[in-house]
Structures are given as structure tokens and as C-alpha cells.
């Protein structure tokens, strides 16, 4: 087994942070080596160093035993390193072929030779089973196909070492299985793969070796045979972590949210939510499973007053709530954990104390006669930061300085500390570390047990299966099924998320 890539003692500093602390990492030919760690552990930094996007402050990189210096991605590409980023580096308005040839364009004289490139792409896609249409516009392609374009992009440049950064974040279980099949196909042809993820199940399913990072250091290396999920989670976090949240039976009461025939249009006037109907009862969690882009965003916006519905009816706690303002909904017991915490959940430049009263600033005790009462606001901030375990130097720092997990805790603190009937949680643990996920899951179940109704929208099947009492699946704007959690399996849900329908009787 020869080593194709080796990183020795890599050091990388950013202002105020040591992102990579003398990291050693090696990759053998034909293996799938998983790099596991929480957000902020230093995995992406290490990969950016290996791809030439960052220059290390110390240490060296060897490709096939030869020391190399990567000044830029060009140098890394020349040595056979290819990277598929978590956030795609694709230009939406270009075609697949244009994206793939960017930077290494084939030209006939002065003119771009699109035909030759398209032919080469077709050849590669057939060779590896990665179907892509060279002439399609990237913005018209579904996310799973865009990812395949990224992989073909690396293969087009003769990559022998492929770095995949959190590739399954946007895929259904079946698409993820497809990706694993492609990865095995690639390794059987001699390509070596570094696979970055924080999803423990996948790690065990696909890896040959696993290296765990924490706080900039390598904590240890192991194999799937030696370590199970619990041990890996403990290595990632540094302490034992409960992976399954403990919950009792749900005690559902009356419906707090009744949605009938709701349809919503997006900004292009396309109907993205098509006549959906469902109920959320007090004291239960209804999970809406589905790959992102099937209307969940617009559904959540319609239910929280951010987008006027096109048709249908929404009733919150018995009274009509269709098309009402967020202020009305909040005052009638709605709490919302938004999908994009930085854009819609917080004012990043505001300090924590202001962020914590974003819903209640106009009420007593936070404002009297239109004047903000700073003493009350600050006292509220101190109390909530302690109660919800927000790790921050003080409640007066700007929200932008907090880690993703702590930012989410601020939002959770703000929303769950009010008297609420319905909690709409949209992708509440996206991008969070295992410790924060554990915390937020506990909070959701606590609220459920206090009699609140919870609408959980998530693309993470594990999360849906763990927390929900009933599960609905959303596909192309429609609810294709609603079933009790006990009856749902990963396979069934995966199929439903990809468009299949339940067999009747």
C-alpha cells in the first residue's frame, strides 16, 4: 500500500486562532480515508492547505513521496489533487462544459472549443457512471447532479487524489448511496479519496480509515472495524455524547396548527407548495422530511408570516393566520427557528442582548412608552445566556463573533423563553457540532413535553426519525405521505423523499 499524499506537521494560523496545530495526515492509494470532526475542528482548513488555497505557516506536504509547495490550486491540480467543495464552486449561468473547462480551456485558435470539451465530458461520465449533460445550464440542474459535475470537473483535470468536503449534506439517502457507489468505482480505478464529514453513520458505511480532528489537532486514527459511533462521537467532542435523545411518549392534545390546501408561489411566480394539508397538535413533533428545494423553505415562510400564501388556509391555535404578519403570529404564540440563522435569525452586528429581544422589544418590560429599558434588557440577556448555556465572553459581544452552535443557541433562547404554542424549527441543527445538536434536540423535546406543538423541517433523516412523533414527507411541493414515526424506516422515507408513493393496502 503506497502513500500518495502525506501532510507532516501542518501549522496554520488565523488571527486569534490556531486552526491546524502540527497536523499529520496521510492517504494511501485507492483508499477512502474519512476526516471526521466538528465544525471548527480544522478539517476544512487542512484541506484548503492541501489544495493550495491556503499557505501553511509550518510543516510540509508530500505527493508520492516528493515534497511539494502549493502556491495556488493550479499547483495542486498539476500534482493530481482535485477538490469538491461543500459549497459548490460552480457558476450558475454557465453550462456544465463551461464550468468544467474553466481555467483549463481547450481552444481552437482563439475560440473556445466547446465541442471537444463536451465530447471528453461525455466520455468521462460514461466511464465512471456519472451522467451529466455538457450543455445544460448549471442553475437548471438539481443539487445531486451539480455535485456530479464537480466530481467530473476534478476527473477532467486528471485528479488521482479527490477531496470531498461534506458532499452528502445536500443528498437524499439514495443519492448518498449513489455517491458511495461512485466513490468505490473511483477507488477501484486507483483514485484515492479524502472524505470529510461529520455524519457518523456514513463514516462507518464507507471508510477504510478514519482520522478524527478536534480543535486543530489530530485526536487519533482508527478503522470502522475498531470504532463504533459512540466512540467516534466521544473522540470528536472530547467527552461522551448521547446520540439518541431520550424521549417519552408524546401526549398530543388539540391541533395548534391546521393547514388546509396551502399553496405558495416563489419569487418567480412558480407554485412551489401545491395544496398541502396537515396538522400539528399540542405536545407532538411533526417532522417534515425532504431534500432541500422541494418547497420547505417557502412553506416555512408562509407559516411564519414571511411570505403571503397564494391559496389555502392556515389556522394557528384555532384562529385564522393566513397571510398574517410575523408580529401577529409571534404575539399569538408562534416561535420560529429559521433555516438561515445568520440572515434571518440574528442581526449579526448587534450584541447578544439586543438579539435576544428581537421579538419582544416592543413589550414591557423591555420598552415603556417607546423607550427601551436597558436594565431589563441586560438582565434578560444575562439570565438567558446562563440558562441556555451560550458560550460567549459576555452578553454584549456582537452575534457575529459566536460559533454557529452558539448563535443557534441564542436563537433558541430567544424563541423558547416566551410563552409559545407552536415552534417551527427549520433545519435547526444544520452545520452544528455534535454537542450543540445534542442540546437543541433536548430543547425541542422539552418544549414538546411542555405541551407545545413542534413543526420540525429537516433534511437530516436521522434527526427526523429521532425527534418526530409523526412524519410527513415533502416532494416537489406536495406532502406525499404522513405516517406515525413508529412505522417509518429510513428506506421508506428515502424512497418517499425521492418521489415514490406509499403502496396503498
Amino acid at each position, binding site marked *: 500500500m503506497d502513500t500518495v499524499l502525506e501532510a507532516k506537521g501542518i501549522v496554520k494560523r488565523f488571527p486569534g486562532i490556531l486552526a491546524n496545530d502540527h497536523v499529520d495526515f496521510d492517504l494511501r492509494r485507492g483508499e477512502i480515508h474519512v476526516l471526521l470532526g466538528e465544525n471548527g475542528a480544522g478539517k476544512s482548513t487542512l484541506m484548503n492547505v492541501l489544495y493550495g488555497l491556503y499557505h501553511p505557516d509550518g510543516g510540509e506536504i508530500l505527493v508520492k513521496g516528493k515534497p511539494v509547495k502549493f502556491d495556488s490550486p493550479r499547483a495542486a491540480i498539476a500534482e493530481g489533487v482535485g477538490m469538491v*467543495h461543500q459549497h459548490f464552486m460552480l457558476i450558475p449561468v454557465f453550462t456544465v462544459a463551461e464550468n468544467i473547462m474553466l481555467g483549463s*480551456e481547450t481552444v481552437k485558435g482563439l475560440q473556445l472549443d466547446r465541442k471537444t470539451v463536451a465530447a471528453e465530458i461525455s466520455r468521462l461520465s460514461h466511464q465512471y457512471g456519472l451522467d451529466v449533460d455538457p450543455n445544460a445550464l448549471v442553475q437548471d440542474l438539481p443539487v445531486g447532479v451539480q455535485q456530479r459535475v464537480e466530481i467530473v470537473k476534478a476527473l477532467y483535470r486528471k485528479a488521482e487524489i479527490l477531496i470531498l468536503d461534506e458532499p452528502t449534506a445536500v443528498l437524499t439517502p439514495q443519492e448518498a448511496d449513489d455517491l458511495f457507489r461512485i466513490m468505490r468505482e473511483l477507488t477501484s480505478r486507483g483514485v484515492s479519496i479524502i472524505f470529510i464529514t461529520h455524519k457518523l453513520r456514513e463514516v462507518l458505511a464507507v471508510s477504510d480509515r478514519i482520522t478524527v480532528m478536534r480543535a486543530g489537532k489530530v485526536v487519533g486514527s482508527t478503522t470502522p472495524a475498531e470504532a463504533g459511533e459512540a466512540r467516534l462521537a466521544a473522540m470528536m467532542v472530547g467527552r461522551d455524547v448521547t446520540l439518541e435523545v431520550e424521549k417519552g411518549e408524546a401526549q398530543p392534545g388539540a391541533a395548534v396548527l391546521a393547514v388546509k390546501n396551502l399553496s405558495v408561489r416563489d419569487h418567480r411566480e412558480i407554485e412551489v407548495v401545491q395544496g398541502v394539508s396537515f396538522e400539528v397538535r399540542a405536545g407532538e413533533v411533526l417532522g417534515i422530511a425532504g431534500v432541500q428545494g422541494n418547497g420547505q423553505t417557502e412553506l416555512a415562510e408562509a407559516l411564519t408570516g414571511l411570505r403571503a400564501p397564494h391559496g389555502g388556509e392556515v389556522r394557528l391555535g384555532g384562529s385564522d393566520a393566513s397571510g398574517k404578519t410575523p408580529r401577529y403570529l409571534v404575539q399569538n404564540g408562534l416561535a420560529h427557528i429559521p433555516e438561515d440563522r445568520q440572515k434571518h435569525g440574528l442581526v449579526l452586528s448587534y450584541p447578544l442582548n439586543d438579539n435576544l429581544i428581537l421579538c419582544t422589544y416592543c413589550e414591557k418590560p423591555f420598552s415603556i412608552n417607546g423607550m427601551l429599558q436597558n436594565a431589563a434588557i441586560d438582565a434578560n440577556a444575562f439570565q438567558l445566556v446562563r440558562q441556555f448555556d451560550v458560550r460567549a465572553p459576555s452578553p454584549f459581544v456582537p452575534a457575529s463573533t459566536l460559533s454557529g452552535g452558539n448563535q443557534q443557541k441564542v436563537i433558541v433562547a430567544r424563541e423558547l423563553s416566551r410563552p409559545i404554542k407552536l415552534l417551527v424549527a427549520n433545519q435547526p441543527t444544520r452545520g452544528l457540532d455534535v454537542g450543540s445538536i445534542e442540546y437543541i434536540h433536548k430543547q425541542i423535546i422539552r418544549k414538546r413535553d411542555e405541551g407545545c406543538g413542534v413543526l420540525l423541517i429537516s433534511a437530516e433523516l436521522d434527526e427526523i426519525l429521532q425527534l418526530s412523533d409523526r412524519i410527513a414527507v415533502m416532494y416537489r411541493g406536495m406532502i406525499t405521505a404522513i405516517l406515525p414515526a413508529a412505522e417509518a424506516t429510513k428506506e421508506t422515507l428515502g424512497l418517499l423523499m425521492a418521489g415514490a408513493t406509499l403502496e396503498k393496502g
Partner: protein
Amino acid sequence: MDLKRFLFIGFIIVILFGVVVLVGASTTPPLVLIVSMVATTLSVVTPLALGSLAGIFCERSGVVNIGIEGMMLTAAFFGWFGGIYMNTILGLDPLPSMLVGVLVAILTGGLMGLLLAVLSVTFKVEQIIGGTVVNILAIGVTGFLNRQLFFESNGLFGGQLPHAPGVLPRIHIPILADIPVVGKMFEQQPITIAAIVLVFVCHFVIFHTRWGLRTRAVGEHPRAADTVGINVNRMRYINVVIGGMLAGLAGAYFTLESVPSFEPLMTNGRGFISLAAMIFGNWSPIGAWAAALVFGASNALQINIQFFREMIPAQFAFLQQSYVLGMVPYVLTMLILTGLIGKTTPPAAENQPYEK
């Protein structure tokens, strides 16, 4: 640029041409009028076409350029001054002097472009402010130097406005210009011809060459371009300087091809109309040219109507006032920019300095 837009443009142009044909119908045959309109349109569209090409190179690479007006004005002044200097002080013949003037204008435009690039790319100044700086600097420098050099008694020319070398001569395109009647539109001045050629050359460059692909990538998603090894800031610098040079050539049109003199603020908003043409043309050279032709045609209408002042029937007498027709290009600009004919999509990453 979709069909709807081209049809709208065609429609307006037909109306503008139609007005001239109708008004002059009693004295002049329609074909002569149409040819005259085409010839005038092609000529007056030159600064707009070049200005919009300048805008396209800058904006496609991600740098908003509202300083095209200032770049044109500065280039107009220095190009004119260069020509006069060569002719009067160095004793060069008029034609070579004017050609040197054109070169000076292009260089001046390039330097102003470099200024915008330094402000926008290196210092990451808000790009609208950067463009405004260019415009204000242009007005100041040209106004001041114009007074100092030409009107002060201790100025370079002793207080007497020197004789300018003239304007660039019309080129008689062989064969095409010999066609009777129609041939008149094929006798154009060099910068006008260059502008038309450049529209098609730039269209090819932007959409069919390596340079164009990389430029567009840098303007849409600079990080994606960076990850495949493209130097984002270097691409932006070069494209903005190219844009400046194109604006410089537009400036040369004013003082070396249109009229042989310099007036303060003589660009008269043409730089901004170029931007409107670029936006309406969806950041494509041929599209922007088509939009510019609308403005050019309305300008040409104003010019050609002058010949028929006496002929205008009583109810259209108001057209005789020059300001009425003079408004048409600007009113059209406003109408177009309200999105009456739908929206166009700018490069996604424009006006955002790139941070690694």
C-alpha cells in the same frame, strides 16, 4: 438579449425613422432620408457603443463603472490637446497630429481606468463612489487645464486659442460607398468604423474566447474562478483598464471626429446613457449596441429634423424647439430603466470586492 427586446428596439427605430420620412416627405424621397438617418445614427452612436463596451468589460469582470462619463471627458480633452500640441508646437501635419491625439486619448482613458481599478480592487472602495471620483476628477482637471492652457495670457499658447488640426476625415469604403444613394452611409470617419468593428470583436471575445470565459467567471463567482487557479484581482485590473481605453477612444470621438474643439462637459451624459444601453442590452456587446442605436437614432432624428424646420406642419411646430427632440434620448433612457421591457440580470458578483 431575447427576441422581445430586439423587437422593441426595432419598433422604436422604425418609429423614429418614420417621423423623419413623414416630415420630409414633401421635399425629399424616403430612401434619401433613410440613408441620411442611417449615416447619422451610425456616427452619433459611436461614443455610446464604445462607452457601453467599456462598461461591459468592467462590469462583466465584477467592477461597476459609473465613471465612463469622466473617462470620456478626460480623454476628449487630452486627445484634443495632444493633437493641437503636435500640430501647433511640434509642427506635425494635421492628420498625424490627430492620430497621435487619438492615441493620447486611449492612453488617458486607460489611466483613468487604472485609477478606478486601484480604488475598487486594491483599496476596495465602494465602486459607485470610485466612479463618482473619476467623474468629478474629470470635470475638475479638464475645466482647469482648459482655462489654464488656452485662456490664460501666460498659458502655453499665449492666451490665443490655437487653430485645431481639424477632425478625422471620412473614409470612403471601396465598392460599398460607390453605390448610388445608399453609398452615403458607407462613408464614415475612422472611430465610427472602429466602433462598429469593435462591437463584434468584443462580442466574440466575451463569449467565445478564453479571456471572455474567465472574465465572466470572475464577475459571476470569483471564488469558483479562484479555485481553478484564476487570479481574480489581476483579471479585474486588466479588464477595467481595457474598459478605460475603450472609453478613451469614445472620448477621442468628441474632439477629434465630431467637432474640432473642446467644451467643458461636452460629453453631455453620453457616458451614463452608455450604461443604460449596457443594462438594457443585458451586458452583451451586440445587445448594448442595439440599445445604443435607439438613442443614436433619436439623436439623429433631432439632427435631421433641423433640415426640415420650415416644412413641419403646424401641429408639429413644437418639434422645432431643439430641446423637445433633445429630450428624446434621455426620456427613452428613463423609460427603459424603469424595467418597462422586463428585467435583465447583471453579473452576480459585481460591486463586491474579492476577499480571499
